[in-house]
């Protein structure tokens, strides 16, 4: 998959399930192990809790080795050490980057093997 699959939803509770469903379909297309899909969803839902509205966007891209998710914009709470620990356990790499909008964006990388 060379293109990016993007979904934008309101940054309010209740939309996480829609994003998870899209990620499940994407994970199935990429032939990811189911526990990997599950953890990709858990990590995304965890990050979405820090979204600052009105909308939040998830960009998914993939190569033969990994799946990358870029999620934002996020509040400063995304940098909480405990929350980072949760994300570090789920994803292979977690980076917080400033976006073009000046807000924080999370970039999560998941290897395409089994869950960590």
């Amino acid at each position, binding site marked *: 998959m060379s293109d990016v699959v993007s979904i934008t939803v309101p940054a309010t509770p209740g939309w996480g*399930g829609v994003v*998870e*469903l899209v990620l*499940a*379909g994407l*994970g*199935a297309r990429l*032939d*990811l*192990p*189911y*526990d*990997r*899909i*599950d*953890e990709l969803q*858990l990590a995304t*839902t*965890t990050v979405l*809790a820090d979204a600052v509205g009105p909308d939040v966007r998830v960009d998914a891209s993939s190569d033969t080795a990994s799946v990358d998710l870029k999620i934002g914009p996020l509040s400063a*709470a995304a940098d*909480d*050490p*405990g*929350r980072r*620990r*949760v994300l570090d*356990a789920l994803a292979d790499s977690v980076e917080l980057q400033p976006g073009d909008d000046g807000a924080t964006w999370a970039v999560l990388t998941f290897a395409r*093997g*089994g*869950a*960590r």
Partner: protein
Amino acid sequence: MASGDQRALLVAYLKEGDVRARDRLVEELMPLVRSLANRYAGRGEPTEDLVQVGAIGLVKAIDRFELEKGVELSTYAVPTIVGEIRRHFRDRTWGVHVPRRLKELSMRLSRTRDELSAQLGRSPTVAELAAAVGVDEEEAIDALEASKAYAPRSLDQPYDDDEPGRLPGLADEERGYAALERGSVVRQGLDALDERERRIVVLRFLRGMSQSEIALEVGISQMHVSRLLRRALEEMRGRLEEPEVPA
């Protein structure tokens, strides 16, 4: 109890309406109910709940028993007891309405996920799961996502008979909480969880165990571990979003 005694009690209840005779039959056959309930233990529902549900099945079997059929009550009752336990799993433990077809498919997928994980030595893909249960991938995704509506109950029930209310090895896990940074929102959020959820969170996020390893350690399915993790993270978020009450 000799089968002749059982038959006498059945006659007393079914022909003469002697409710005490039925109570006696229920008492006598409860070991059978417990044995059947134990077969379904470790699937996310407290065994005592399953025993209660099975007992309802036993009472129904006694009420429907036909004396002239000439079969043993225990033989007759087994399918009714098992049916009641299965119905409990199917109907009573889902948080929102999910069509029965999806519930049944979800349960098959949950079992298949555990079986394939053991066979393959890794987590199966959606395509492998779908092929194993004979549905297409979209249906499998529907059912897997629908399973997240399942509401695990009685999470606060102790499951160590020797030390009611405490979980084995929990002291070690509690030391693990200290490893979370003081003031961390996650550490604060752990207070929102019950013991079982905390244990699973710690095994996953502090000890780095995979969902399948946790499933083996705790004695529940991988699907249930996933639900508990999801619920734990949701509860933690919910607690964190509550406004602080001024002292």
